[in-house]
């Protein structure tokens, strides 16, 4: 449903994504792997159009996204969860969810505040707390829940396990598997190979903004040289 073709993105003069191409099928959970600075976050941002690719195309169900404002991309059904969480610290949990609320979409799971509280019970207890009064793990749950309020058909998760206690990472993995069971398509960027293997069907490895591997985790396990060259294990 998502397809990137020869995407080139820049920060000023720095050429970050170099002819990056891959696709994500409906209902798939794909892990985008690579070292720090490999271009994982830029790939995500180039999909949601916070970073505008200079050339190439990004399509969702055949619809071109390059050049669209971010809010249109979001309304087309892409939910973006940024790496640094970016929750609204001066807003309560409920208000944060309200910002993310969008009308329901055909062919995508429908979310309500109650359903999200069931998925992340911690948030229910904290529902009237300000965003800044929450722990890192709770903020991470909130940012995912906030994005789900937009009823996306494709979820982009940028390093959800980063800097979070192992117990919470486990909860997160369960949540992602539940989302998958509901038929949501997920693309997740990770440095944590173990976590990626638990939740994802397929791995894409990038290095210096170019694709180095695209295949199942079994294939990846059969090629330790790739893992050693491009992943910090």
């Amino acid at each position, binding site marked *: 449903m998502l397809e990137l073709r020869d995407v080139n993105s820049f920060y*000023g003069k720095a050429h970050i994504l170099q002819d990056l191409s891959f696709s994500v099928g409906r209902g798939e959970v794909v892990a985008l792997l690579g070292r720090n600075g490999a271009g994982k976050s830029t790939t995500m941002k180039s999909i*949601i159009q*916070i970073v505008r690719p200079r050339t190439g195309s990004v399509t969702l169900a055949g619809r071109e996204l390059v050049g669209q*404002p*971010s*809010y249109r991309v*979001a*309304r087309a059904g892409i939910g*973006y969860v*940024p790496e640094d969480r*970016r929750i*609204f*610290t*001066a*807003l309560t949990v409920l*208000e*944060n969810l*309200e*910002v*993310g*609320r*969008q009308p329901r979409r055909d062919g995508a799971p429908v979310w309500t505040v109650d359903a999200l509280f069931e998925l992340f019970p911690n948030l229910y207890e904290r529902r009237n707390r300000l965003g800044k009064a929450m722990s890192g793990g709770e903020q991470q749950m909130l940012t995912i829940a*906030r*994005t789900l309020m*937009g009823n996306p058909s494709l979820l982009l998760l940028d390093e959800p396990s980063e800097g979070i206690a192992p117990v919470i990472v486990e909860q997160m993995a369960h949540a992602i598997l539940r989302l998958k069971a509901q038929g949501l398509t997920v693309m997740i960027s990770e440095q944590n190979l173990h976590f990626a293997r638990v939740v994802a069907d397929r791995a894409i490895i990038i290095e210096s903004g170019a694709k180095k591997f695209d295949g199942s985790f079994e294939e990846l396990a059969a090629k330790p040289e790739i893992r050693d060259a491009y992943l910090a294990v």
Partner: protein
Amino acid sequence: MGFFIAQLLTGLANAAALFLVASGLSLIFGVTRIVNFAHGSFYMLGAYVGITLMGVLPGVLGPYLGFWGAIVLTGLIVGLAGALVEIVVLRPIYRAPELFQLVATFGVILVIQDLALMVWGAEDQMGPRAPGLRGVFRIFGEPIPKYDIVLICITPFILLALWALIAKTRLGVLVRAATQDREMVAALGVNQRWLFTGVFALGSALAGWGGALQLPKGGADLLMDFNIIGPLFVVTVIGGMGSLPGAFIAAVLISVLNVFGVAYLPQSTLVLMFVVMAIVLIVRPYGLLGKEEVAGEHGQSGAPETPIRPFGRRGRLAVAGLLLVMALLPLVTQPFALVLLTDIVIFALFAASLQFILGTGGLVSFGHAAFYGGGAYAAALMVTYAKTPMEIAFLFAPLGAGMLALVIGWFCIRLSGVYFAMLTLAFSQLVWSLVFQWRAVTRGDDGLIDIWPSAWLSGTVPYYYFTLVVGVLGILFLRTVIHAPFGYALRAGRDSARQAEAMGIDVKRVQYVAFALAGALAGLAGGLFVFAKGSVFPTELEIGKSFDALIVVFLGGVKTLSGGIVGATFMAAVEDWLTRLHYWRLLLGLLIIAVVILAPEGIVGSARRLGLRLGLVKHTEAD
């Protein structure tokens, strides 16, 4: 007792309009991060539109519905005007540096001023009385206008309504979210363009309502826009940017203070509110209910700065050639041309000093005229009261202005960004009101006269040479500072304060010194000015003067010292011709807006880019 309560009630009634206008400014700033200098213009527009509607509607709808309907409708019309300004002027420049946005809103002020002049004429207009509220209530024997009581009663409801809008509605949630992180709000599917337009329209409507509501107590005139900027910024700074209850408390505080000031200290009404502001800021740097600003973390990003380099050999030769021509000019030109050239050199020095603090220091000072006029007054006061000879009195211009900058800088440097800009503006208004109202010393708007240079410098030609030498030395001094380690430290602090501090640079201290330096050089220009004209008036300290310099620096190009100089020359030459036209403000305003949108690098920057493209300028030799 009765008198005391009467004063209090008058102050509370006056607070209504001020609060409405201030809350609009606060709201707009919170979401768009733009300090809308044209906000006072929407207040003025509200007053004029209100008068017109109050003349028409009561005939159609009857006196009561006509009057109150006119007020409601005024806000809606002014809100629409605000939306138009947002769409046309601000939308293209949300990602531009702060200064560009501020200058663009200043362009809007000029345009609205002339449009108001065209439509409503230059005469001040009296506001109509509110129907059924013409008389007074007797409270403790003191007469209180009925309309005042009505205003006092409705203001809390306006506060409540605004608070509910912000705290309880989806719009309010989105507004608060966008205040923190616009990019993320967009990534969540919110069309922030319309959110911005809506907020700007609402903020403008509030200003319009403020203008219309005060009509029965006052009226409409063409100075309303500038006159409210001082109190408006004071209220916003005292209350805390972005805080509605803060704006309310501060509006009440300032209005009540003003009324008592008029009653007990009539000589110091203007100064009083700035003194209160200064006290509040010492205790709470971000205002009573404000929070520390961490602006620019997400969402706003300007283009990376290209490092500036000193002129190469070719550039230096050109400057030397130009100076030679200027030195030889008295041999061939008329005295009038020399007077104009003297003005240009003075203006160029003033603009260069502002460019230094603004471009190199990254500190957007909106009150630079305080130091220019302050320097002029320092020298003039010495001549007037101590009969100091010109040579010594002249030195007091940079000295006095530098000391003034040390005092003002002590308050301002602690803050940054828009707080800094508003604070410098408020302080310059303080200096202006001090000079304007302290007639015993400064002679108020009669000005200080008979301030002439010594015999050896009197006459157009000697003074022209004097100005040329002092002006060029001043500019060269600034250039040396910019390219010295101190200048590097200043730029480091501008580009990344945290990183600079991690490298051991005391950023605030460097900025403080630079601010004082810029003030001293502005004072030097002021000193040149006062002896050139033989007199000085409070106009040299006005907001308009600060804006002149800002516009000049902006037109020339913010990034290079030469920008200020080229801009000043361009402006001085064009102004002479432009001000002869009837609606020159309109033209200038449109020109400014066009430059902001189309050629944001200014004259020097655009010329340089053109030169690069045509191969006339090499990268290494530029600047």
